[in-house]
């Protein structure tokens, strides 16, 4: 079973995402504190990380930067979750090596699992609509 780490402090939202992903047979783990995120990646060894930008302790961009600078963790695929639609944050995240980003208020749970499947290489890219900026 492929493992998804969701770094998200809004537990209600985490419940929505995890319920959908679990229905699609993924193992889902959560970390809500930004300070604990990098350690969680190391110990959980997820196949994909969904990373919120605004987090207590440490923001998602800082976490992403540390992951990408770490030889062992740099290859981890990261998709950013943002509620801001803040272009400069998105640009920074993509420059730092995030695969993609999703605007949280735009996420339909069924699309979330499609996107996850895409980044895990489980479906052809033509099957999903890629987000472009």
């Amino acid at each position, binding site marked *: 079973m492929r493992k998804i780490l969701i770094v998200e402090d*809004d537990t*209600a*939202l985490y*419940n*929505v*995402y995890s*319920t*959908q992903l679990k*229905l699609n047979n993924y193992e889902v783990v959560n970390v809500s504190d930004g300070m604990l995120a990098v350690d969680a990646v190391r110990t959980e060894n997820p196949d994909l990380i969904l990373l919120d930008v*605004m987090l*207590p302790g440490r923001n998602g961009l800082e976490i992403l930067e540390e992951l990408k600078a770490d030889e062992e963790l740099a290859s981890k695929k990261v998709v950013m979750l943002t*509620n*801001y639609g803040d272009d400069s944050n998105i640009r920074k995240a993509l420059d730092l090596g995030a695969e993609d980003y999703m605007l*949280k*208020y735009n*996420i*339909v*749970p*069924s699309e979330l699992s499609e996107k996850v499947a895409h980044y895990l290489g489980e479906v052809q890219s033509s099957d999903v609509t890629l987000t472009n900026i």
Partner: protein
Amino acid sequence: MLPAVAIFLGFLVLLSGLALFISLKKISLKRPHSIPENIQKKADKAMAENNYLDAVTEKYSVSLSLPDALEALNSVLLANLTFDAFAYVIQTSETKAIFKCVANVGVSKDYVASLKNELVIRLDNPQIELEEYVVGAPTGAGGISKFASRLIIPLKNKDTLVGYFSITHKNANTFDSQDEAFIVDVLDTTLSHLINLKDVIEREKAKFRTMVDSMTDGVVMFDGDFKVLVDNPALYKLTGIQDSIGVNIMDLDSYFAPAFSLREELSAVFTTNTPKDFDNVNLDDKYFEIALIPIRNGDSLSRVGMIVYDKTQEKELEKLRRDFSAMVIHELRSPLTVIKGISDLLLTQADRLSLEQKNEFLVQIKASTDALLDKVNDLLDAAKIESGKIELFKSDVDIANLLESTKYYYDTLAQQNGIQIVMKLDSAINHMRLDEKKIRQVLDNLLSNAIKHTPQGGTITIRSEVNGSNVDISVADTGKGVSDDLKSRIFERYVQGKDSQAKGTGLGLVIARGIIEAHGGNLWVEDNIPQGAKFVFTLPKAGMEMSSQ
């Protein structure tokens, strides 16, 4: 235009208008023995007199110096008398005097020297230190070296002798008693005019000084050589520049150099005679609006005023407002995002979700909806308070009962967090006329904040007591407390404790204070001894029924 600029300019106009008004009070100068026979000559003389007094006023209002003003005598004397030179000596202090001579072409140095001796000797002060100015062209040997006629007239400031004035000619019998009377008249007029003017100008300057000094905007006035004529304490405060003798162009130029060249801009204003405005000048973490204003004196431009307006707070407020809007949008969108996600999930995956999961999601939808409503209500309440439209629906409220029920409501949450809520109520307080729902809203806010900020094992104390004509109700916690910096600011809109992970609009305390103030009371925060924060609100006792016990 900045309001301060208008006041400043208005004042300058007033000041120069005043000087003009005085000079317009034409004082007629009579020259007894040569009353002009034709109208043309009369007009010429009147013109000379007017010009003379204007010149005196102009010179005097700039420097307040008697010698400078007397220099303007030349034209009126030339127009009415024949002479080789005139001179005066004026004592400016006990040990100092000024000698000034205005000589015609052809007058020699010896001529000026003997004129000086004639005058200085009359001061009868051998210790006097003389400052000398000779205008004209003494030719040395060969020129006119002696005068045969002279008039010497004492100069008096009120009744005090301050010096001597003299007019001379190489020929004998040039001046008669009518000439003397004319010069005495001119000098008397001049001196009384000057004394009057000096008083008025000094009074006005003092008023102007007081006003400029009390302005919160920085003010500088430059002359054509960029010399600083006027500055004020606000300028020192804003720029941090202060010199024992005030600011100078060098310091100001280097202070503003990162934004613009003050010298170049001043030159431009002096040249073009048009004002300049620099907005959002960012220096030293401050934002300034700077205006350079040409100040005209009649037709000529002799000064440029500079107003430095500190708009840092304005900019900060603007940023706070922007951040607040972004925060509000985020706060409203978060629960909506949850509701939308859950609805999608329930719609698309209904057959795959267990009943328990579905129930859990419905509970979450309700919680998100409540949170959303709370936030919308907060925004509306804050808007009502801000516009003063808060309305109270008062009834007789049993205070003890209200406090007890609030405690009861929060007990469970407190226990879950390992916190104890303690009540210390004054039994003398019974019923009060209050808007119960709104006071309950205040208590909710204070208690939920206290629980949020109290660590496990801590205590929250709710206390009521009669304090003079008020009833004090307080909620004290044993948390980290509120920093002095934040103590007053947390009641302002847009402010949230920085380290608090508190979510929400940050409007809770704004609303709470608004509600208490609408009841005629106060709400503030102080340190809880020995630890934590204590939020206290007072309600006026008026209308309270005291318990009969």
